[in-house]
């Protein structure tokens, strides 16, 4: 079943109508085909119009759409011989971040990403993509493994944020995120990150201090969720829409700010309307960037990455 977002109501109504017509079609009326085609065209126009001018708040909804491809879908679609690796060697296996070894377009990669899960059981198992310190410590371990064997690292970012909990604090959530950023910066192999849905704050940058940060057209990346920002600065959670505008969390704004390196176009109507095409497009962009990065020697790679982040904040909108 398709999940419609608030602003997709007119689309939902038309698609409902088509369903009804198809149901009637069983009785053998041939004119239905024409009517369906007419509605189909109208729907396509509506979708195109809606998605051409999504507001930041609408993008936040699209970025969190339950049918949007998640890290597991990119692993399935892009990585051969995926061999999951588990555990931080310290405390636990944190399934909010999944990762392992695999082959991308014929070459070994270490690949990891936040996983939100796509049904109730999976969401609980993956803690809605909110990692505890163990998740970040596993990420560091895998990055170091990649460094040791000169294998590029791919990360997929899709998290509401690091898990806010007593246990996570007790085991050093802050230290774990800090050390992850530090590890990203120390790598002497290419590191390509893709923000595929939600780039929630420290939990996101922990995996995304990369040579190249790609971002899907309707993904978001921000220091705080619009809801969180609204309740702190506006003292009113209802102001999330306003906060979303103010935060400049869209891929287009982040590109202008020089925070990300490429915006990957989504299929018309968003990634969730054509998951396979989205996964393919992401794969092509990653491949292109990896080939570019492969032309640098390890030390240059590392110094360019550092330089890129040192220069940030010099472009304003």
């Amino acid at each position, binding site marked *: 079943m398709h999940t419609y977002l608030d602003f997709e109501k007119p689309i939902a109504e038309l698609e409902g109508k088509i369903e009804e017509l198809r149901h009637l079609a069983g009785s053998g009326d041939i004119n239905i085909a024409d009517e369906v085609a007419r509605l189909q065209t109208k729907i396509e126009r509506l979708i195109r119009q809606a998605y051409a001018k999504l507001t930041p708040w609408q993008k936040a909804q699209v970025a969190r759409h339950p049918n949007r491809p998640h890290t597991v879908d990119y692993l399935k679609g892009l990585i051969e011989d995926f*061999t999951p690796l*588990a*555990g931080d*060697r310290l405390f636990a296996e944190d399934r909010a971040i999944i990762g392992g070894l695999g082959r991308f377009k014929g*070459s070994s990669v270490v690949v990891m990403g936040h996983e939100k899960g796509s049904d109730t059981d999976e969401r609980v198992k993956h803690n809605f993509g909110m990692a505890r310190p163990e998740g970040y410590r596993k990420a560091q371990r895998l990055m170091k493994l990649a460094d*040791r*064997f*000169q294998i590029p690292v791919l990360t997929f970012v899709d998290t509401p944020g690091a898990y806010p909990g007593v246990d996570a604090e007790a085991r050093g959530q802050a230290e774990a995120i800090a050390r992850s950023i530090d590890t990203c910066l120390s790598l002497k192999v290419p590191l390509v990150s893709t923000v595929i849905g939600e780039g929630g704050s420290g939990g996101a940058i922990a995996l995304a201090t990369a040579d190249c940060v790609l971002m899907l057209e309707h993904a978001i990346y921000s220091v705080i969720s619009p809801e969180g920002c609204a309740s702190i600065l506006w003292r009113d959670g209802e102001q999330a829409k306003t906060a979303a505008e103010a935060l400049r969390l869209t891929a287009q704004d982040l590109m202008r700010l020089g925070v990300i390196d490429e915006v990957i176009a989504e299929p018309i109507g968003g990634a969730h309307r054509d998951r396979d095409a989205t996964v393919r497009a992401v794969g092509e962009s990653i491949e292109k960037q990896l080939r570019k*990065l492969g032309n640098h020697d390890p030390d240059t790679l590392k*110094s360019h990455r550092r330089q890129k982040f040192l220069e940030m904040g010099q472009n304003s909108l």
Partner: protein
Amino acid sequence: MNWLTNFVRPKLRGLVGPKEIPENLWHACPSCNQMIFHRDLEKNLRVCQHCGHHMRLEVKQRLEMMFDEGAWQTIELPKALPDPLKFRDRKRYSERLKESQAKTGRDDALLVAHGTMGGIKVVIAAFDFAFMGGSMGAAVGEGLLAGARLAVMQEAPYIVIPSSGGARMQEGIVSLMQMARTTIAVEEVRDAGLPFIVVFTDPTTGGVSASFAMLGDVHIAEPGSVIGFAGARVIEQTIREKLPEGFQRAEYLLEHGMVDMVVPRKDLKQTVVRVLELLVNPGPMAQVVSLSGDGGKLAVVEHEEKSDASTTD
């Protein structure tokens, strides 16, 4: 401690008489108590076909299942000083050694072999649990070092398969020192840029788990293996509490972040081969161009950073 009770079914005994051959033996699975025909058990790599329980594999059989075509070459291990403490408990250690040597036909509890897995040249060091519980003394330490050096010389991944209760008490402090020495063995392999894979089998405990075995690039464990530091009985006596179900088993270790995967014995070889393939044959895109004269740029950046730091002091 023998998990396995070999016996001949009374009915069969009548038929075969006293001269049974192994093929006629039945085994009771120590986990589900079901009867397993000897030949089925061997065919199934000593995994119970009823409940999946993994029984210990003899070290020879272990190497057979790992190496291509079951073919490998062992190397002769350097001699260690036997019985450094002139130790005796109820029996002389030197006698215990002789007994184990006679029983197993091996000098000590480690076998180092080389050959190929999935066409990749590898060195495997495998513990023999039948030799004093696979305990680690100076000879095992020497063996692990020799294996590491062979791996480095052959530029081959190093795979260690522990099955060991830990350090060998009869060698006292000398066995404790093997924890440091085998850690150096791991470092030598790491410094050479070669993969170090640990295949945890039942049991991997004490000084063996607390040294080289926990330092692998990738940790693969057989289902149900006991892996841990202190013995369950010691812990129970210390905390005066019953330990949770599955404590210190491979699956528990996975949950607690200590192993990458728990892999059934039948899939073990192909899993190791896949991991090795990914690490040693990374393919075209993984090849970052080799170091050129461009390295100067990094030095400049670092210098800038240092001067920044000094101004804020």
